[in-house]
């Protein structure tokens, strides 16, 4: 009866709470997927110091110079299937930043595809 009352007061709000719970778990799985993909692409680079590879590692720590950093970003774009903006790509100096940027784009693309 309390639930029915809630629906009458704020039907949309009730539904929004339900969707927020679902999207949090989905976003967590998506983040794990993106992290795994980014680490896989980094590992596949011949010059990568695999023992230092982690989510907090910078390109310098992994043994990449500026040109190899650009190659990594392009390889990630190929892997994910979309291009990112140049301003955001310039800010990618490590694994963590790459994960954040590509996760943001994946979430945006998923939300636009759901709306369609």
């Amino acid at each position, binding site marked *: 009866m309390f639930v029915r009352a809630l629906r009458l007061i704020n039907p949309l709000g009730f539904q929004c709470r339900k969707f927020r719970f679902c999207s949090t778990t989905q976003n967590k799985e998506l983040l794990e997927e993106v992290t795994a993909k980014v680490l896989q692409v980094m590992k596949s680079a011949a010059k990568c110091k695999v023992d230092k590879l982690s989510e907090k590692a910078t390109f310098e720590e992994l043994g990449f110079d500026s*040109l190899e950093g650009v190659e990594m970003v392009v390889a990630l774009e190929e892997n994910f299937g979309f291009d990112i903006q*140049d301003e955001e790509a310039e800010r990618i100096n490590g694994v963590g930043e790459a994960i954040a940027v590509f996760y943001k784009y994946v979430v945006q693309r998923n939300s636009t595809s759901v709306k369609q």
Partner: protein
Amino acid sequence: MDKQVLKLYKSILRAGNRFRDYNFREYVIRRAKQDFRELQNNPDLKNKVIDKYTKELEVIQRQTIVQNLYYQTNHIIEQKQCNN
């Protein structure tokens, strides 16, 4: 390295990746990597490389459109990679 050079390098790699034909794609990417590595070791070549690749970028962008119109099947190396 200079931001302008890195931006140009990224544009060349992105444009080169658009070739569906294995040979063209690998050639463009390999030559770009070679020339930009040489630039890193020899900074005097900066203006020459930038001029060359600014023109090359337009050529690559045009050629990807034309080449992809006539693309038929993928190279045997790519077929083997798919099977593996």
